[in-house]
């Protein structure tokens, strides 16, 4: 099996910076990502855009081009279209590339697999025509197609960013339905002073809202009781606004309730996690170098807790410094000198986070649907009511519910129902989320074919 000093999984800002930092100090580094090009979510396909698309997506997007080029010019071995599906605590990574499974042994691993959009279950959300807002952005960045007359619904900074990007692409959303309420503003007001260090983000936010206003995009703030209307396909959206029922006709609904750490690998590895109430999600435990509960495994970027792109990049560098130190490429003074300046920058980037988390905290009904008929588990079509009944009975938690109801058993492995199911249990039987816990996950964390598994066996036999 091939051996390297460091394997980085995920070529977003965190993974690119971790790989570059380690390789620039002489470590042998592989950087794996299932996408065709480096960039991660924020800088998706940034090096393949013509000038046109980059301009409409904004400067924060084109910023990523520098790092993507740096990776290409460096000693980092970037394996594109490599989907990781198993990692062992001993440092072995198994991944598929072009239908073949391969393995690499690494002395250290940095998990930089980023975030997923939080599931936002409401009546009708499994109908074709309801997609996540991030999905619409991916279609724009990666494939150059834009949704027509879509309704954006949910909350969070990304919701506005995507609205502005659609506007710039000449297809403004029909309306934005915002689920944060007056209480959300009250709750977050006290966090404002501490957040001012990150003022750049507020300038950008204000600018975005002004652009939307100028373009005449209607915003409904404080909406609730969202439901997609339609028989088999979306024909409209129903909601409650200022005490009144409203309905808009539309063929596409783009839902979004912020992003949460992608914990597939950290869970499958059995790493320690804790409940982060501010971000309403589980996060893997890491020390201030990003080291997890397993000595060889580090976690950087949104996968360790949502921090945003720039902070993810800084965390990637900080992880890499400790990796270099572990493997004796640099001494303690060298590590600490660089780390200190990175930590200062990180503090500035993280300043507005608590405010954003509080302001755009998803409302309870957006996490656990009120209506018993609403599907929670998309893959197996398990309804909220069935899970509530289980939780009210003798079923102790998500793992037993999985066996009894099949929720979380489908091919997405609980990515889009896990947090809702854990919260449903906590709410119904009054136990803390730390006690309720999350699905136990097993490898492979990505769907693979038997052919890929077989190719591994053949490879081993040849060695």
């Amino acid at each position, binding site marked *: 099996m091939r051996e390297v000093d460091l394997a980085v999984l995920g070529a977003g800002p965190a993974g690119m910076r971790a790989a570059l930092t380690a390789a620039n100090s002489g470590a042998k580094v592989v950087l794996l990502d299932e996408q065709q090009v480096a960039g991660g979510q924020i800088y998706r396909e940034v090096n393949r855009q013509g000038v046109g698309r980059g301009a409409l997506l904004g400067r924060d997007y084109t910023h990523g081009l520098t790092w993507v080029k740096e990776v290409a010019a460096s000693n980092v071995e970037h394996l594109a279209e490599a989907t990781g599906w198993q990692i062992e605590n001993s440092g072995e990574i198994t991944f598929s590339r072009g239908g073949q499974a391969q393995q690499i042994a690494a002395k250290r691993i940095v998990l930089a697999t980023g975030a997923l959009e939080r599931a936002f279950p409401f009546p009708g959300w499994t109908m074709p025509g309801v997609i996540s807002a*991030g999905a619409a952005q991916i279609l724009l960045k990666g494939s150059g197609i834009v949704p027509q007359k879509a309704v954006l619904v949910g909350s969070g900074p990304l919701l506005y960013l995507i609205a502005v990007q659609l506007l710039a692409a000449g297809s403004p959303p029909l309306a934005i339905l915002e689920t944060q309420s007056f209480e959300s503003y009250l709750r977050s007001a006290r966090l404002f002073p501490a957040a001012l260090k990150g003022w750049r983000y507020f300038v950008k936010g204000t600018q975005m809202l002004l652009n939307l206003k100028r373009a005449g995009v209607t915003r409904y703030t404080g909406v609730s009781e969202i439901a997609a209307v339609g028989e088999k396909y979306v024909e409209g959206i129903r909601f409650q606004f200022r005490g009144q029922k409203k309905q808009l006709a539309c063929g596409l609904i783009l839902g979004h309730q912020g992003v949460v750490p992608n914990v597939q690998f950290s869970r499958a590895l059995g790493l320690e996690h804790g409940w982060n109430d501010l971000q309403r999600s589980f996060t893997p435990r890491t020390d201030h170098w990003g080291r997890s509960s397993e000595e060889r495994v580090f976690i950087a970027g949104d996968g360790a807790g949502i921090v945003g792109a720039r902070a993810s990049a800084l965390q990637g560098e900080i992880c890499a410094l400790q990796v270099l130190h572990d493997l004796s490429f640099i001494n303690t003074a060298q590590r600490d000198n660089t780390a200190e300046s990175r930590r200062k920058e990180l503090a500035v980037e993280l300043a507005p986070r608590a405010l954003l988390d509080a302001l755009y905290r998803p409302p309870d009904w957006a996490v656990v649907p009120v209506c018993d008929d609403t599907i929670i588990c998309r*893959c197996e079509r398990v309804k909220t009511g069935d899970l509530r009944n289980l939780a009210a009975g003798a079923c102790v938690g998500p793992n037993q519910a999985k066996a009894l109801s099949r929720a979380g058993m489908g*091919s997405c492995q609980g990515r889009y129902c896990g947090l809702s199911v854990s919260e449903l249990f906590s709410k119904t039987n009054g136990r803390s989320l730390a006690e309720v816990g999350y699905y136990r996950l097993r490898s492979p964390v990505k769907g*693979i074919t038997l052919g890929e598994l077989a190719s591994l066996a053949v490879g081993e036999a040849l060695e």
Partner: protein
Amino acid sequence: MKNALHFKRLSSDDPCLQITWNGKPLDAVAGETVAACLLANSVLAFQGEDLSDPPRGPFCMMGACYTCRVLVNGVEQQACMVEVKQDMHVSCVDPEKEILHAGS
């Protein structure tokens, strides 16, 4: 709203590739994913449209939700993770014969 235009291609250049969807020809543009190509052709349900099951469409576009699975030249793949190629044959997966395995 089944027949309304749901997605528009940004570039005004003419579509330059051809693929098939369940045997019918579709226009495609180099660089777009199979999922994007289907959506741009107003195919929102990738599965279940003719079956008794409720139709199922793509959701995340980032390889996480698995509701975009289709057969690409006979091999089951995530439509959002594969780029179109000239003469690609794309079709619905038979739900009884799904072959992608994940741990559970």
